[in-house]
């Protein structure tokens, strides 16, 4: 880790405080409710405030220039902007004060918009009073702010890709092609994951292993990719840019250790095995779509039980998916409607009757509707069954009988197919709990990993430096998994190309003399950022700042009050409370 | 211009006023209407449902008759217009069918080769004559009387075959109403069927459908309805006389040419006004009256 002391030299500890307060109109957003001129005037009477003003749009170029100019003109060493939410413009204003030579942590933003004008729209007087309170509190806090060093961590230019399925392969190639090293680990002996096993893919016509062949070939030959199959992670630790992973590889006596800067988790899915549904376990002729796809082409038209030719096929959709109340099976598995349409269309040419029993038809993707149209043109019969009265299946002496009600024709149906093919759910693979624990990832109710934000950050996670891609994140088809993989790879490459990344200085810190080695904070930390500092005797708790998110849980939990939150110290917070409760007398020299 | 009038079965017997008014109005506007003789039923609905080739033959013969006269056909009934156009489309694209029909027509010395067009009355008024000419021919404009337009089904649908007006938002009748000084009134369900074809199979359903239209038109504040098909005209008139309608105010139904006639200065007698089951004087007396 390197430290960059921007603005540190500009501060001497006993220097006179010179606070500047910039109150923003935000057009009509704040000024329409809050009397911003009054707020600026009142701020001028507060202790240590040497300059106040009000601006129409502080975040604009003009507004930013004003801040820079006033810092120099009035020798300001603390800047407060009373405007929108810090979530909006804190980074902007921090950059502005830094450009003017001040440490960014000497800047404080007061939220007069989301917290005042937007929620107290009909009470302008009370809103203005609240605005004045908040500015007064911020001024008191600013007086206690300290500059903090800007820290950077270096990024090891190597990425660990966990999972050698289509997503992992794509990610590995994308990263390696840009000149970075990749370690690709796969727990099975072969690369290719689930795609390798499937005979009919969509939208193209090639079987899975043919689709993968060129990718696997390139991966094997790539000088930047090290492949470990039959590999299992035995240990993983570190923080962004500096992870250490220990892998046990089948056939090797010694474990392999790698240092990596980023991780992409592409552990995929497993197909749900519908034991107990539709008599799946009672007949070899009742199989999943995965089972069917795993059989060589010719074999797909032969009954597994007695070898007789298959003339009539029934497909059933939504097996083990979309079941309200059945945990882990409530989600739609997304791939199945399109896969069924494609498969049925291909097989229909050689069969007498093909029937697809569905709850809904979700052929949503590009060209997927065409699979349905082609299937129907080939006389595949689509029939809708009610979700609360699923088809009944009986097996007698090898003969299969199905009964269901066609909802749209309002007719009871009966059918004797030679085989039944069930489109079963995509569910998380074996061992996903260990993977989530290893990488500190959380999972949603469908059992798959959570991204950092489902819309805005779909491939990163809450663990900095660790990305997820493909079905590991949620049920999806192979094309979509590849998109994820390229996205995750871009994130990894972005990190590694920068070479180093700034980490927030608003982290927690253990005061060694006060620590009683109780380990409460270690357990409490949701990010696994606290560990033992073994160099001391007794051991004390130690925060890895690169992993810390500044949430404050440890500080709150510590029974010895041994942890401080930088930029949210007890003094800073108490100053705000006192300022709120006791309005200070207007001080001489504190007026602008 | 010359046009061959194909009357169909129903107009000459059940709504001769429509035939007379149409001839009078078109002649006034410069179209020479010639009677097409020796015709037969176009085959709509009944033969149509029984045998496709028989249907094509019946309409095909009418098209061949017009071809012999080398003039376009004017159809004033929606069903006839639909049949003729549909079968023209069929015979133009299916050589085998065309040969089969021609083999039946050969004996009479007739042949179908697709040379003549089929024009519905609305096409002739809107395209061949044009709204400008109609406006200029008005001598006694209406005083803004509110008329609801009912287009019927086969006049405007299916668009790919008939090519008359926008099927979801037709405007020809509305513009004709305005051209002679009336006010066109919009109403829900404007493009829906009148229910007429259902009379044969289920009279109750047919009446429900027809009365639904009358209700919508009445609620929209219309003083009268203009039509462009004989079946629609008869149906919308008839449903206002059925069971449970005695306390309703009856709303006059006029074929479009019967509505245009007075504004163009034509005498009532030429338009068959006394034959209307619902007296239309409340409408036509409004022409030439200042607003």
């Amino acid at each position, binding site marked *: 880790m390197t430290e960059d002391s921007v603005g540190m030299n500009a501060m001497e500890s006993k220097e006179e405080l010179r606070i500047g307060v910039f109150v923003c109109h935000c057009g009509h957003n704040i000024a329409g409710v809050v009397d911003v001129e009054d707020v600026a005037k009142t701020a001028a009477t507060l202790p240590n405030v040497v300059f106040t003003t009000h601006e129409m749009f502080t975040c604009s170029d003009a507004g930013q220039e004003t801040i820079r100019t006033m810092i120099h003109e009035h020798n300001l060493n603390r800047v407060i902007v009373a405007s929108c939410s810090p979530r909006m413009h804190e980074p902007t204003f921090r950059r502005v004060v830094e450009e003017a030579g001040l440490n960014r942590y000497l800047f404080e933003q007061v939220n007069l918009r989301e917290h005042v004008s937007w929620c107290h729209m009909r009470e302008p007087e009370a809103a203005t009073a609240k605005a004045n309170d908040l500015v007064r509190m911020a001024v008191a806090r600013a007086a206690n702010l300290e500059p903090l060093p800007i820290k950077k961590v270096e990024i090891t230019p190597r990425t660990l890709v966990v999972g050698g399925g289509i997503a992992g392969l794509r990610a590995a190639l994308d990263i390696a092609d840009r000149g970075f090293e990749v370690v690709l680990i796969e727990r099975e002996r072969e690369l290719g994951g689930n795609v390798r096993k499937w005979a009919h893919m969509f939208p193209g016509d090639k079987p899975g292993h043919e689709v993968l062949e060129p990718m696997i070939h390139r991966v094997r030959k790539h000088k930047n990719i090290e492949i470990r199959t039959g590999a299992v992670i035995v240990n993983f630790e570190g923080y962004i840019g500096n992870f250490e992973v220990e892998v046990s590889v089948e056939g090797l006596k010694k474990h392999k250790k790698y240092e990596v800067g980023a991780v992409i988790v592409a552990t995929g899915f497993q197909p749900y095995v519908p034991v107990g549904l539709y008599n799946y376990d009672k007949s070899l002729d009742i199989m999943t779509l995965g089972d069917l796809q795993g059989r060589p082409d010719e074999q797909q038209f032969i009954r597994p039980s007695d070898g007789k030719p298959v003339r009539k096929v029934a497909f059933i959709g939504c097996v083990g998916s979309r079941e309200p109340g059945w945990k882990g099976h409530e989600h739609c598995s997304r791939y199945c409607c399109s896969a069924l349409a494609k498969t049925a269309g291909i097989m229909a040419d050689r069969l007498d*009757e093909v*029937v697809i029993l569905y709850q809904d*038809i979700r052929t949503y993707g590009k060209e997927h509707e065409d699979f*349905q149209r082609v299937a*129907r*043109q080939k*006389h595949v*019969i689509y*029939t*809708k069954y009610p979700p609360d009265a699923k088809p009944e299946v009986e097996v007698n002496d090898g003969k299969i009988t199905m*009964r269901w009600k*066609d909802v*749209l024709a309002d*007719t*009871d*149906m*009966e*059918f004797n197919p030679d085989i039944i093919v069930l489109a079963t759910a995509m569910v998380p693979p074996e061992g996903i709990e260990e993977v989530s624990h290893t990488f500190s990832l959380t999972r949603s109710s469908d059992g798959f990993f959570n991204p950092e934000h489902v819309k805005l950050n779909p491939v990163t996670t809450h663990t900095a430096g660790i990305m997820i891609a493909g079905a590991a994140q949620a049920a999806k088809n192979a094309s979509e998994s590849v998109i994820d993989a390229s996205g995750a790879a871009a994130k990894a490459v972005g990190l590694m190309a920068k070479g180093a990344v700034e980490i927030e200085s608003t982290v927690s810190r253990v005061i060694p003399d006060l620590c009683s080695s109780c380990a409460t904070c270690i357990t409490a930390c949701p990010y696994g950022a606290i560990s033992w500092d073994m160099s001391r005797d007794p051991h004390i708790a130690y925060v890895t700042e690169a992993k810390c998110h500044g949430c404050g849980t440890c500080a709150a939990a510590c029974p010895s009050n041994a942890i401080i939150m930088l930029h949210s110290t007890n003094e800073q917070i108490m100053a705000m409370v006192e300022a709120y409760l006791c309005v200070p007398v207007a001080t001489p020299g504190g007026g602008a | 211009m010359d046009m061959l009038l194909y009357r169909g*079965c129903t107009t*000459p*017997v*059940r709504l*001769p*006023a429509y*035939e*007379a008014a149409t001839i009078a109005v078109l002649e006034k506007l410069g179209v020479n209407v010639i*009677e097409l003789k*020796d*015709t*037969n*039923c176009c*085959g709509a609905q*009944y*033969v*149509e*449902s*029984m*045998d*496709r*080739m*028989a249907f094509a*033959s019946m309409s095909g*013969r009418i098209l061949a008759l017009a071809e012999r006269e080398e003039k376009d056909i004017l159809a004033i009934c929606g069903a006839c217009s639909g049949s003729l156009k549909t079968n023209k489309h069929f015979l133009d694209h299916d050589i085998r069918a065309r040969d089969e029909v021609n083999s*039946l027509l050969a004996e009479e010395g007739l042949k179908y080769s697709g040379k003549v067009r089929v024009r519905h009355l609305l096409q002739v008024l809107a395209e061949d004559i044009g709204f400008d000419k109609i406006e200029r021919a008005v001598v006694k404009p209406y005083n803004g009387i509110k008329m609801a337009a009912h287009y019927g*089904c*086969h006049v405007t*649908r*299916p668009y790919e075959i008939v090519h008359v007006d926008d099927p979801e938002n037709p405007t020809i009748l509305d513009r004709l109403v305005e051209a002679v000084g009336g006010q066109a009134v919009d109403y829900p369900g404007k493009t*829906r*069927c009148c*229910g*007429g*074809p259902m009379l*044969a*199979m289920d009279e109750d*359903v047919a009446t*429900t459908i027809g009365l*639904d239209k009358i209700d919508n038109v009445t609620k929209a504040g219309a003083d009268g309805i203009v039509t462009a098909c004989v079946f629609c005209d008869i149906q919308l008139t008839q449903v206002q006389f059925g069971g449970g309608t005695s306390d309703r105010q009856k709303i006059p139904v006029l074929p479009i040419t019967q509505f245009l006639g007075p504004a163009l200065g034509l005498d009532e007698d*030429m338009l*068959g006004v006394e034959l209307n089951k619902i007296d239309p004087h409340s409408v036509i007396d409004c022409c030439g009256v200042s607003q």
Partner: protein
Amino acid sequence: MHTCTTKGQEKSIHVPTSAFAKEVEKVEGGEAINKCIQCGICTASCVVANATDLYRPRRMIQKIILGLREEVLSSDQSWLCLNCRMCEERCQEGVSPAEIFLAVRTIAAREGHVPRVFKEAVKTVLEDGWMLKDAYTDFQEDEREDLGLNPELHMNNEFVGKLRKRYFERKKAAEESGS
């Protein structure tokens, strides 16, 4: 199709087959039968469906797709379409339920399933050449004369004789022999 009795109630159960749809597909007007994706816009647009619970175009098409041949051909359902073509105008997949039902009618007609009123109307047309010969009385003639219209309607009834021989005698024979 077979029936089974459960709890004293006769329920008819059908076996799905593509045979009927394949048959309809070959008849003029029925070509698009397999394009229907059962979206329901036809039924939503249908004035008949709006006026009576007996008629649902989407349901009928699904029955054809499922192969319920006997039920569809022997029911009145396909004859309840009044051919207004609203469904054809609105269908997004290029299906005309009206055309499909016309195709079904022609198949039904070949097998002798025709509602009485249609039979009679066709009989009249094939004899007279048009529908309303019997309704054209002196009264109507006078009305026409008063309007200055030609009272002679000049309708040809010979051509339809050829059509009857060519297209309908076979049907009649089929009907009479009960096949």
